[in-house]
């Protein structure tokens, strides 16, 4: 009997491992972002992509020299955002937004959003990665 059960349970374990591995890979914070480089930016929304496995918010940020740079921030999964009351209508193109998060390791203009403050003053936690630092940047 045991002989029959063992391969089955091994298979089940393998199945769980296989299923878990890609989920982790999709949401690893540390692969892309640097917990040592917090960032806080204010800008206007240029695009919101509610895409699985996680969304992206793009904003135009005014630089000190007057030029505008476009930044992309990783968000949570669309359903997770919906549960927090964030839909397409919450962040229309042209609306003001403030983001606290972490910069990408490659130093380019993208990062990971932890706290997003909407134009109406509403503040929501938006990150989706399991291994992301949850604390407000700078603290």
């Amino acid at each position: 009997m045991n002989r029959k059960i063992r391969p089955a349970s091994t298979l089940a374990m393998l199945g769980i491992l296989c299923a878990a591995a890609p989920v982790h890979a999709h949401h690893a914070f540390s692969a892309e972002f640097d917990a040592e480089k917090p960032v806080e930016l204010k800008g206007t929304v240029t695009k919101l992509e509610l895409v699985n496995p996680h969304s992206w918010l793009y904003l135009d940020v005014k630089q000190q020299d007057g030029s505008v740079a476009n930044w992309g921030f990783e968000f949570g999964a669309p359903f997770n955002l919906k549960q927090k009351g964030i839909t397409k209508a919450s962040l229309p193109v042209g609306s003001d937004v403030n983001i606290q998060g972490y910069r990408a390791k490659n130093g380019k203009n993208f990062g990971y959003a932890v706290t997003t403050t909407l134009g109406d003053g509403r503040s929501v936690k938006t990150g989706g990665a399991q291994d992301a630092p949850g604390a407000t940047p700078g603290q």
Partner: protein
Amino acid sequence: MTPLHEGRNYPKNLLPIVGIVMSCLLATQVLAADKKIPRLSNGKPDFSGIWQSTSAADYDLEPHSNRKDAPPSAGSVEGEFLPYLPKALTQRQKNFATRATDDPALKGYTLGVPRGIYYPEPFQIFQRKQDLLLVHQFGHSVRTINTNGTDHPKDPYDWWLGDSRGHWEGDTLVVDVKHFNDKTWFDRAGNYHSDALHVVEKWAFLDPNTIEYKATIEDPNVFSRPWNISVILYRHREKNFQLIEDYRFTLDYDDNYPPKPNKP
């Protein structure tokens, strides 16, 4: 000679002819039955089965000569070429130049609509009265076409496969698909779209084992007018034919997914 109108002899003489006519009618009916398309219990055509296109649409929707990475084809587009806006045509040319690395299918991304339909791998349809479920072998993508009279959601996401709502026009299934993201292409030649893509599909049986698939595609950010494609889908009838697992995360998928604005 007995006059023809004399009742007693009339049926006797005609019996062999009636027999021949009857058997002819029966034979025709049997032939007709063979050509009858499968139907659900509610009378609607039943597209259940495993299907695949033999077209070269996935290589390049437009007419093209042979290339190292594509067989030649007369194209699958009505009017032959896609009506790109000038700026979008430049992007398409860039995509074509970098197709060996930038084709979303090579990155393992979900193929989108309509690419998943004519991509050279089989897909299986499971159909009920209220919906059709399309399972694509490539990446094991699953798409639902709702046929329960519901409309697109009011707070949509940017789905990889859009949101599909179908209805019947006679024996043709008409599907309205929208709310896409902009991360998929139409083919491996760099023909592309924005997140404003809107697809209207028409599915109809040509015979029990053949579907004519047509789609009208519009995207005001990329094209100057709507355009149409048409491909034929064949039912797989090989013995024991089945979808095989083709999960893309077993390949170099994690290098590309999830999509990032700039690769590190």
